[in-house]
C-alpha cells in the first residue's frame, strides 16, 4: 500500500503523529537558531526513522510509531512530574525552572501525554492494515 493510502486509512493516527513531530521540529529549529543543535538532531533522526518505517512491513512500522509514542509519553510525564515536585517543594528558587511550568506549558505537556496514549491505542486498534 502506498504511504498516502496508508495515511488516509488512519487519519487520526497520522494527524497526531504529524502534530507531535511538528512540535519537536519547531523546538529544534528554535534552538538551532540560537546555537544549540541537540533538539534539531533529535527530531531529524526521528523523522528519518519514522519515514524509513513506511518502507518496511506493517509490523516494523507499528513498532516504530509505538516507540515514538512512548518517547512522547516519557517527555510529557517527566515534565508533569517535575511540575508536581516544584509545586510541593517551594525551596527550589530558580525562576527559569519554575517558568517552565506555566498554564500554557502544562496544557502542552498534558496534550502531548494524551497524544502519545492515543497514538498507541490507534496503533493497537487499527493494526495499520
Amino acid at each position, binding site marked *: 500500500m502506498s504511504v498516502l493510502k496508508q495515511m488516509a486509512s488512519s487519519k487520526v493516527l497520522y494527524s497526531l503523529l504529524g502534530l507531535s513531530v511538528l512540535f519537536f521540529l519547531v523546538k529544534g529549529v528554535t534552538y538551532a537558531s540560537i546555537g544549540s543543535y*541537540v533538539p534539531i538532531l533529535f527530531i531529524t533522526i526521528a523523522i528519518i526513522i519514522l519515514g524509513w518505517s513506511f518502507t518496511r512491513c506493517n509490523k516494523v512500522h507499528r513498532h516504530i510509531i509505538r516507540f515514538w509514542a512512548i518517547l512522547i509519553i516519557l*517527555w510529557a510525564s517527566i515534565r508533569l512530574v517535575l511540575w508536581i515536585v516544584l509545586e510541593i517543594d517551594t525551596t527550589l528558587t*530558580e525562576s527559569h525552572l519554575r517558568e517552565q511550568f506555566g498554564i500554557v*506549558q502544562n496544557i502542552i505537556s498534558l496534550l502531548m501525554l494524551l497524544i502519545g496514549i492515543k497514538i498507541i491505542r490507534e496503533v493497537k486498534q487499527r493494526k495499520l492494515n
Partner: protein
Amino acid sequence: MIKTAIFLMLSLFVQQTMAQENNELLEAQKKVIAELSGHQIPEDGRRIPHRSTKEERELTRDYLSKVIESLDLTPQLQEYTRPNVNPIIDLLFEPYRGANVYTTLPSTNESDAYLVIGAHFDTERNCPGAIDNASGIAIGFGVLRKLTMLKERNANVILVYFDQEEEDLVGSQAFAQKLKKEEFNVHSVHSMDTMGWDRDGDNAVELGLPSDLLEKTYVEVGKELNIPIVITSVGSSDHVPFLDLGFNAVGLTDELTSGDYAPYKDTENDTYETVNFDYITTSTELVYEVLKKLMEE
C-alpha cells in the same frame, strides 16, 4: 588681602556645591535602592517586591529605564534568547528569555574606546535584593551620574544592568557576546555585585580576577581614597562571561572572602534597612575615580 578673601569665598562655594551634589547623589541612590527592593513605591505606583519572575523582571526593566532617563540618557534593551546550560535539557525545557538594560554616555573627545560598568538587576525568588544587587545598581547609577558632569571624557561609557545573573549568568553572557560580535573596542569591564555591607567599617572592596592594569589602578586609587583593595579569584558573577571571551574584566564585591559580607544575601531579609550607605558612597567614589583615571591614560 582682597584676593585672598575672594579665593577663600570661592573655594568655600566650590566645597559647598560639591558637598551638596554628593548629598543629592546619595539621596538619589537611596531612592533607587528603596524602590528596587520594595521598601518604597516608585512614582508610577507599581511596587517592585522582588526581581525574579518574568513579570517582576519586566517591571524592573521599566523602572531602570526611567532611572537612566533621569540622567538625560537613552535606555536601550538587549533582548536575548539563550539555550539551557546542558543541551539535553533543551529537549525538555524552553530557552532562557530576558533582556539587559543599558545606556551609552558618549565621550566628549573623539574616541572609539568603551569603558563598561555593569550590575545585575535580578534576584533570587522572593528576595528583595537590596544589597544583592540594588546596591550595585545604585553604585553604577552614581558613577555614571558623576561621569556625566565631567567636562571632558576621553572614552565612551556603557552602563549595563544585567538580567538573569542568578540563573547561570545568562544576561551577562548575552551582553559579552554582543560586544564581541559587534567588535566594540572595550577597554575594560567593571561588574559590581553585592556592595552594601561593611560591618567593620573599613570600606574594603574585593576585586575578583583583575588584570595587572586594573589591579594596579584600583590599588592606587584605593590608597588615595583610603579604601583597602583585596584581590581574590572569585569567579561567580557577571565579570566571568567577559573574561571567558577575552575582555579585560573585573568583579567588584564586598569582603566575600575576607568574611565581612552581606549575611542576608539571597534571603527575604536582604532589605533596605541592612544597606550600609557610607559603603555605597565610598564604593561609588572608588569606581568613579578609577574610571576617570583610566580615561586619562
